[in-house]
């Protein structure tokens, strides 16, 4: 009551490309964090045609949750319902949400109002579909859909802010004014995917000091022996498994190994990349599941630098269309906003998302902002707690959903039945 909070046991659901977060509004962190990727076994496998047609059929067995995609199963394919940060495949999404409700949080969705997040560039059809699923499939008593940039701003205690959100598949820069997204200022690109690819190519190509690295997941390795750095790994592979592993699962596992390496070794230089500067930093040793280990020096800064420049890309790729880098996104977003607003935005920049957890990202973003600001004062807010930095949109939803003044905005089931889909757009501005 003192802080304006009044908990009505609402539940906040935040679906991202990498993970789906669910938890009670009013709590600090989500109770349950599941991978959004799911494994599936096509029923009619080894029949006529193992292409996309089979994937779309409902006759597949889904494996969602912690033991879904992460556990190896013979012939299990991997899918992800998200594309460009938006949900495009709704049938597995339903399963993932249901799993999160019943197995993750162990609640009956019919008893809890549900607050769902959406990216700033979500389509009207998509949010209406989400409302429909919530009301029709899960029978929730009340529903609200809020923008995750706005929620990130709320999580850092700001009404007006410039949100820089670096996710798994999308990075976006969104100006927020008084809790409203300025739609003209939204700028997003798939630069994180490019970063991921470049990290993969760095590992997959050897150089004079170390050989190319075989990125096998531990699920496919039987035994391994300790070897000296940069020596070829000595491990026994599970050939029985490798033979029946689906390519999509293999790719998913490979990407995860790259991500693990990025989390352990990746970093961003505080200024523009230069070889000698990068080499002056401490090297980091990392051991892969095969037992191969090496220490990484300057190269560990290259993927992080691709967020900011295209210098490292091969010339053919950088000349063609490449996704916008973070400075380009910032420039685009700021150019679209009114000049009167820019000082306020520069004063309230919030950095969030999983990609923002890369060491040194805050300093570098601050440096790039200062270059764009033209003498303006820049104040960057980067949550020190990594959990807060990654899940700030969920945390903002948790704050919003537990406010006493918010409860009049819920779309109730009765309203949904009376007004239909149009109420979503009129209520959730």
């Amino acid at each position: 009551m003192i802080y304006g909070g009044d908990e009505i046991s609402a539940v906040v659901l935040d679906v991202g490309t990498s993970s789906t977060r669910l938890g009670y509004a009013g709590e600090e962190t989500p109770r349950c964090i599941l991978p959004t990727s799911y494994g599936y076994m096509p029923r009619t496998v080894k029949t006529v045609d193992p292409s996309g047609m089979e994937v779309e059929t409902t006759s597949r067995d889904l494996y969602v949750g912690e033991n879904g995609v992460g556990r190896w199963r013979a012939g299990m394919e991997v899918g992800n319902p998200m594309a460009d940060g938006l949900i495009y495949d709704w049938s597995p999404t339903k399963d993932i949400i249901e799993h999160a409700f019943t197995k993750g949080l162990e609640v009956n969705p019919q008893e809890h109002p549900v607050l769902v997040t959406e990216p700033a560039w979500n389509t009207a059809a998509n949010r209406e579909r989400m409302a429909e699923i919530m009301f029709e499939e899960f029978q929730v008593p009340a529903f609200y859909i809020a923008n995750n940039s706005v929620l990130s701003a709320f999580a850092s205690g700001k009404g007006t802010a410039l949100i820089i959100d670096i996710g798994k598949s999308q990075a976006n820069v969104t100006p927020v004014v008084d809790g409203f997204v300025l739609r003209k200022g939204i700028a997003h690109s798939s630069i994180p995917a490019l970063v991921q690819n470049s990290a993969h190519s760095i590992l997959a190509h050897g150089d004079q000091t170390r050989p190319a690295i075989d990125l096998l997941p531990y699920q496919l390795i039987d035994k391994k022996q300790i070897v000296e750095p940069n020596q070829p790994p000595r491990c026994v592979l599970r050939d029985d498994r490798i033979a029946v592993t689906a390519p999509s699962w293999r790719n998913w596992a490979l990407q995860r190994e790259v991500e693990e390496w990025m989390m352990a070794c990746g970093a961003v230089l505080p200024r523009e990349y230069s070889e000698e500067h990068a080499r002056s930093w401490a090297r980091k040793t990392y051991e892969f599941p095969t037992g191969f280990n090496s220490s990484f020096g300057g190269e560990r800064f290259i993927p992080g630098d691709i967020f900011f420049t295209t210098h490292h890309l091969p010339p053919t790729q950088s000349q063609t269309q490449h996704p916008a880098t973070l400075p380009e996104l910032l420039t685009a977003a700021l150019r679209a906003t009114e000049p009167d607003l820019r000082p306020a935005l520069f004063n309230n920049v919030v950095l969030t998302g999983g990609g923002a957890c890369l060491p040194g990202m805050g300093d570098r973003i601050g440096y790039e902002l200062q270059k764009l600001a033209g003498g303006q004062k820049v104040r960057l807010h980067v949550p020190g707690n990594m959990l807060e930095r990654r899940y700030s949109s969920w945390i903002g939803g948790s704050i919003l959903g537990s406010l006493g003044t918010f409860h009049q905005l819920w779309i109730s089931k009765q309203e949904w039945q009376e007004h239909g889909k149009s109420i979503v757009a009129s209520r959730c501005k």
Partner: protein
Amino acid sequence: MATAADVRDILNLPQNPLGTKNVAKKTPQTRKEAGITRELYQLIGDSAPTLVAQYARPKLKAKPELGRPKVKWEWKEFQHSNRADALAMHHWTKTSPAQPEEEYPFAKYSNIPPIAYEYSSEEYSRLLEDPDWSREETDYLFALVKEYDVRFFVIYDRYDFPEGKPRSMQDLKARYYHICRKLIKSRPFAGDEQTKNQVMSSYSYDKVREDQRRNYLNGLFSRTPAQIAEEEALYIECKRIEQNERRFQRERDDLLRTLAGMESGLASLSLRVDDPTNSLPPLNIGSRPRVPRRSDGMELDSPVANNNMIAMPSPYSGPSSLPGTGGRQKSGSVSGGATPKQPLSISLSSAPAVPETSFDPVHCLTQPTAPLTTSSLTTKTHKPVHFRSSLIPQPKSSLKQKVNAAIQEMGVHPERLVMPTAANLEKLEGLQAAAGGLLDMKKALDRVEQEIRINKARLRGGSEAGETDADGTGETDRGRTDREGSIASLEPSGNRQKRSASVVSSAASAAPDVRPRKRQRP
């Protein structure tokens, strides 16, 4: 759990030592005593009834009485009064039987009265027609304004009128505020005229000016880093040139004054240029401690920090300290520097009137202006509270009598200054200085005349030897008595007469005027 029977079994003791077979019969008697745990009781069994009396319920510390009744919370359904539907939400509340139906405590925060204006059709057709705006678009604008509570950034962002012109935020604001002003003007107003004007002015919006401001802001934001650096460098360069210029000016004036003295005509002007309060406004303003200025004056401030300071006028500069309004001479320097060798330069050094006071005629206040840092005069910055009568100037004690006598001779009573105002004091000081000067002059004149006479006598002595000697001395004696007699009778011939007359007149007017004295120089 081991029971008594088990223990007996382990220790090879016979079962049922008391020989009683009927266990069920005993159960009512072996009621567990309070204070013994169940496990212990099972071990003891019913064989140690005497011990039971020693076990008492352990006494715990009494709970403090806080004087509050027990609070009970319950998971209660509630209705939100601001909602049109009957959504039943639940929250934890303290159970209070007294108030069964209470309004939701947060409902009151959401009842914000609408702040947007609305107009009727009649008003629109009468007042608000605009060739640039259709009625539909105006309605659309006002609906948006209402929806987003006059947040124009958001309104502009969401503004999407089908088949409408592209509108800038200034267009939207101008239209909205124009309509608001018209409506306020035409409608009956509850308050008085002044509040109405205030409300009107709060809705004023000058689109042309806003456009200009926006363009200017855009220009500011679109500067490249190189341009910013150049701008900063230019600013610094500009300041350096300005300071150099000032230094050159000062040095040139100093030089001129040293070489040409009075005839440079720079006296008051150059001192005003020297005045640091006049030339360096940022140094005296603001809370930061004043840094002693180096002689080369290379003290630069960043352009951002001083942007507003530069525009601010220095409190001690400007027309209030006009040259000649109040020249207060330092009595110490008048008499102290008065060496008989250079009688004319004495009056010079005291004559250039440094405007040290500025007078505010409205409030009858005399403010001391900032002291000169470059001046060779003594600078006493702090003056305690004092009566001005304590400041009545006194001539140097050795000359006091003579000066007073000279003043008295002109019909002014030297000791009687009834009202020692600042102006009066200045006049008195000027008068005393002039009298002092006059005395000095007279002394010098005496000496010169004496020399002339001696030289003449020598000349004559060279041509005619003996008898002229008596004549010469006689003349000398007479002249001396004349001169020592009175100033008024001091009227020798020619050039000398003119000079002394001007001294008297300047003494009588008591104004430290420079011009008449300048003519005194031979």
